[in-house]
């Protein structure tokens, strides 16, 4: 293991469906200024800048070139990441590697997306092999429909439970000033919303958001002198596999799942986490649909297989609960895709600082897991702690 890596600053913009009032570079700049202010640093203190977005959503090759000044990259080394839904996680992971390697002292990580720029689903579909399955692939909803369907068939879970999970996330989002959708929902509202691909209803899916999130990482020497109490990224794990669910000979149900399980078991083992529900105080999982929450909870070993819906039914995942999950309101409330992975880490760090305001979890928060998920099967996960 190299240098210890601390999160010493964070900033995010508001998130909305459409931002005619701002361009990409200006939106990024807002997040960067907030992060620098939070860390009480200036751009001169930043050694390198890692940025990420899914540029086909916005229709410009080399997004890096367009945002240099606003991102604070002028004459600095930097990298642009794009790994689909996991982009934000990959950017934070890249920042972590840059500090952990000992080569850079202070790294700025910026994720953003402006989903008012295109029909995002058309850009998303280009993740598919052009000659084999692009012509029929239709976005991400089907993946969650298949998860929900299998989950209901294998457990006692009913549609009401997924609806309750969505209601809890909406309740959390209303306590988060940065959340995009701050909906006041009942289980009935969710069950009445339009079916996209059964059992996934409109309210089960994440919105298309515009927004940016910036984060400053540094080595221990600098973090010890930081303006705010540092939160440590103790460990991380990334697992990739085939993009398309049905490519390369997979009839395993939901290939996404095994990638999560592989990542989680490696990370837990390295860090002596034997009972995640007890050892981890707060969770920010990347759940693009409320139906994903159940398999995610089980694959991250928060509970035994088939038990996640019971924890939701008992409302144990609420901000006041034993196992708070998505206190920010999660990706179903806010999804500026390139920023979403960075937001998961930032929101977890905010909880561990004890500065999450109205959305601060009731239990004492010293450890947290933040994740990013995408491409049907990729996962990046972070283990955060108040203690180095």
């Amino acid at each position, binding site marked *: 293991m190299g240098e210890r890596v601390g999160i010493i600053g964070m900033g995010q913009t508001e998130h909305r469906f459409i931002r005619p009032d701002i361009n990409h570079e200006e939106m990024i700049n807002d997040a960067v200024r907030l992060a620098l202010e939070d860390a009480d640093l200036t751009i001169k203190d930043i050694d390198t800048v890692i940025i990420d977005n899914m540029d086909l959503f916005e229709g410009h090759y080399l997004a890096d070139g367009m945002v240099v000044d606003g991102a604070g990259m002028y004459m600095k080394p930097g990298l642009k990441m794009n790994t689909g839904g996991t982009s934000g996680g990959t950017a934070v992971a890249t920042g972590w590697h840059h500090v952990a390697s000992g080569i850079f002292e202070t790294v700025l990580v910026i994720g953003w997306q402006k989903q008012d720029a295109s029909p995002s689903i058309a850009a998303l579909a280009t993740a598919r092999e052009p000659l084999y399955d692009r012509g029929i692939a239709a976005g991400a909803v089907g993946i969650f429909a298949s998860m929900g369907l299998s989950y209901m068939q294998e457990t006692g879970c009913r549609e009401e439970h997924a609806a309750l999970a969505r209601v809890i996330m909406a309740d959390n989002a209303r306590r988060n000033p940065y959340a995009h959708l701050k909906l006041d929902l009942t289980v009935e509202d969710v069950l009445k919303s339009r079916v996209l691909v*059964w059992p996934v209803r409109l309210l089960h899916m994440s919105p298309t958001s515009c927004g940016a999130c910036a984060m400053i990482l540094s080595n221990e020497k600098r973090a010890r002198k930081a303006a705010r109490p540092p939160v440590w990224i103790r460990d991380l794990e990334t697992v990739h596999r085939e993009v398309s669910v*049905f490519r390369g000979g997979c009839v395993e149900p939901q290939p996404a799942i095994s990638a999560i399980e592989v990542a989680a078991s490696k990370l837990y083992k390295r860090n002596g986490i034997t009972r995640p529900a007890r050892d981890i105080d707060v969770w920010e999982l990347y759940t693009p649909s409320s139906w994903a929450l159940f398999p995610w909870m089980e694959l991250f070993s928060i509970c035994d297989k088939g038990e996640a819906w019971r924890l939701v039914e008992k409302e144990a995942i609420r901000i006041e609960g034993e196992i708070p999950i998505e206190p920010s309101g999660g990706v179903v409330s806010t999804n500026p895709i390139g920023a979403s992975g960075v937001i998961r880490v930032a929101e977890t760090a905010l909880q561990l600082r004890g500065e999450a305001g109205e959305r601060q979890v009731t239990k004492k928060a010293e450890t947290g897991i933040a994740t990013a998920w995408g491409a049907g099967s990729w996962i990046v996960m972070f283990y955060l702690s108040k203690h180095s």
Partner: protein
Amino acid sequence: MNEELLEIIIPLDLKYKWSAGPHLGAFLRGLKEEKIIANRCPVCARLQLPPTPACGRCHIGMGEDWVELSHQGSVISYSSVVDPMFDAGIGGMRPVPYTIAAIVLDGGPDVAFFHKLEENNPEKVKVGMRVEAVFRPPEERKALMEDIIHFRTIG
């Protein structure tokens, strides 16, 4: 202060040439001859559909072990697409509704084929239902996935 905010529409329409390579190319040429072919890993014996040059799990070249699969199989998963969606491949809205399915073809139990079903009524589609590939007439085939129109329900 000017309240106006400009909105600029920039249509992008790019032409591409996609090289399938010998393995996917063999599969697509197979479709033109009314064949669905997969290849098999020499180490783990896993089939790959569409065929690939290497097995990702064993990190080994796939060799020359080719398998022709039946045109009939069973649906293991499906979704009904009802929402209109923009399709960059046609530069417009894709016609809906349509049903996509993962189909396990007879002879290849560890691979699924991904295509449209003729049946568009989600009430009538069931996991486990038997289906069969309907190919276009030979003169209309172009060695593309569309050489199969859809899978029709049988039995």
